[in-house]
């Protein structure tokens, strides 16, 4: 928590400086965490048993070529200089070449990220739309069987392997019932028609005004994002329940009840209203986790996103691509994490 001043200071200047402090702190902590992330990926890059020089020149190169490349990569410099060069490279978007695709890693990342973003965004929408009401209902019925069912459903979200659920989902809803389309983002005869604007197929199809493609892309998207959404739902419902229970035990709720406010209004207007800010942090956190969790889902659904790119690179020992994808996911994770934390501080008057 940021500085909790016991005396409420109402002067505009003080409030302004408080907010600047929050923002400054946010920037500083985010930058430090990012540097930590880079230190870890740098360290991983160092402990890989693959010789980076041999990876470029091949094992038949002469000693002179080897030495020249060794120097060119800066491997003769002290570790701290190498780290500095590494940070500079990453900040200027130079992640090196991917050995498996033959393109610069940063281009690959830009090409694969929108698919992941699309899936995670749909997933979080599903998770919030179902999870928040579930949490509120569980809190309103605390201790009853409804609460228990929601609690077990939530714990299932912590206990079911995502990739397994993807496989079972495909077997049931695609092969068995035929309700949704199969793996991939789009049917093969629609592939490549839509001009790429955002990289998210559903959005691009709408921009293009092609309803058929939109519906097809949507039917491919719905199952993987619903499964992703289930995992965020578990956390969101659990936290919503706990926030609601806090509110429902407050005196103002008792006052409202004594005044004869209907139970429905007590729950949804009085108790739910103040927890919206707390929920922002929770939703932000789950969104970040979803971006990460999409890795396993993408593999099962052959979804052409970062997760698929990362694992393909992993299996072919393409370290530039692995570390590039790790940095990208890590950065998005950190930024979402820190932003929701800061939003909470700025929006919630109690934390000022």
């Amino acid at each position, binding site marked *: 928590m940021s500085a909790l001043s016991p005396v409420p200071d109402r002067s505009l200047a003080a409030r302004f400086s408080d907010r600047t402090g929050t923002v400054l702190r946010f920037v500083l*902590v985010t930058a*430090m*965490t990012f540097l*930590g*992330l880079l230190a*870890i*990926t740098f360290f*991983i*890059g160092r*402990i*890989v*048993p693959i010789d980076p020089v041999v990876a470029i020149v091949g094992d038949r190169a002469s000693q002179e070529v080897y030495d020249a490349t060794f120097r060119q990569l800066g491997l003769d410099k002290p570790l701290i200089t190498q780290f500095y060069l590494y940070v500079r490279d990453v900040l200027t978007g130079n992640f090196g070449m991917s050995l498996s695709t033959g393109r610069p890693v940063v281009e690959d990342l830009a090409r694969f990220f929108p698919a992941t973003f699309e899936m995670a965004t749909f997933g979080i929408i599903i998770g919030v739309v179902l999870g928040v009401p579930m949490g509120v209902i569980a809190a309103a019925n*605390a*201790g009853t069987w409804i609460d228990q069912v929601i609690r*077990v459903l939530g*714990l*299932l979200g*912590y*206990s*079911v*392997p*995502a*990739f*397994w659920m993807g*496989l*079972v989902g*495909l*077997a049931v809803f695609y*092969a068995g019932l035929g309700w949704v389309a199969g793996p991939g983002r789009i049917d093969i005869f629609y592939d490549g028609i839509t001009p790429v604007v955002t990289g998210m197929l559903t959005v691009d199809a709408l921009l293009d005004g092609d309803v058929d493609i939109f519906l097809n892309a949507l039917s491919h998207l719905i199952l993987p994002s619903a499964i992703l959404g289930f995992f965020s739902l578990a*956390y969101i419902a*659990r*936290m919503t*329940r*706990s926030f609601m*229970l806090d509110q429902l*035990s407050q005196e103002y709720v008792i006052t409202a009840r004594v005044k004869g406010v209907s139970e429905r209004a007590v729950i949804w207007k009085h108790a739910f209203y103040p927890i919206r800010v707390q929920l922002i942090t929770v939703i932000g956190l789950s969104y*970040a*986790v979803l*971006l*990460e*969790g999409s*890795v*396993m889902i993408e*593999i*099962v659904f052959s979804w052409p996103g970062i997760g698929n790119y*990362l*694992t393909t690179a*992993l*299996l072919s*020992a393409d*370290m530039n691509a*692995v*570390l590039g*994808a*790790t940095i990208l*996911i*890590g950065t998005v*994770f*950190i930024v979402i*994490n820190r932003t929701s934390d800061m939003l909470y501080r700025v929006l919630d008057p109690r934390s000022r």
Partner: protein
Amino acid sequence: MVDLRNTEADAATEGDTRKAGRMGALALWLTDDAPASRVQAQAGQAYAIARSFARNPLAMLGAFIVGLLIVVALFAPWLAPYSPVGQNLEMRLMPPSAEHWLGTDELGRDILSRIIHGARITLLIVVMVALISAPIGLLIGAVAGYFGGWVDRILMAITDVFLSLPKLIMALAFVAALGAGLQNAIIAIAITAWPAYARIARAETLTFRKSEFIAAVELQGASNLRIIGIHVLPLCMSSTIIRVTLDMAGIILTAAGLGFLGLGAQPPLPEWGAMISRGRSFILDQWWVATMPGFAIIIVSLGFCFLGDGLRDVLDPRQRDGR
């Protein structure tokens, strides 16, 4: 909710006193309000904890599942009807039947036997990860909390960096660097698991850093090492145990994910995630190959979740509902 629980607890205490009359001397000795010795006090406390734990059906179910996992893992060779690696190509991809309760896989191996042997790998992973990451986290947290100042700031900055990184991705990257295999998977998961314990240990340490018993030992001239090791760490144990139990499900899922990607335990080891990955090609026609190991993962993870929730309710009511 809180009020409700309190009344429940009060009612239970009254019931206990009434029951104690029927249960004889041992129960009376255990529930004595003024214990005569340290042993009696500790036994009484353990008794009270066990009683309130036993009242929670989900917690008991969790304890049962975890106990079952341990028993199955220990006695796998005697429990499994077939060999986990014995191939029988005539019997490949057979559906569940009286002979093969959960069917057979693409090499004719009995899936039930493989799941039973896989319990050993799962247990090995969770125990090793806990044994590596919990002491590291505890030590870092306790040192940070005890010394405070710049030691605290540096250690917690490192902890926070690790905490704010995506766990699965970091484990993937570490395995990529270290090479695939069970041992490296355990190391990679342990590297991502310790920061949570450091946070807990620090928070716990801060609550009693300024308390009188610490000051008393300091005055007696105890070394920092002794204070942390003998007086600080034991007090952090209960909240760490709760957290470790709650984290187990996540650890099992990460390990299964690494196995599914072919980065964890290598074939022919019957690791559950790797088994699902092999069944992936047959999911539409021979669904049992991929689904059965998944149920094993779900049951065990749920068991740890229930157990962890139950332990938290009993040992540490303050932390209830948060994660």
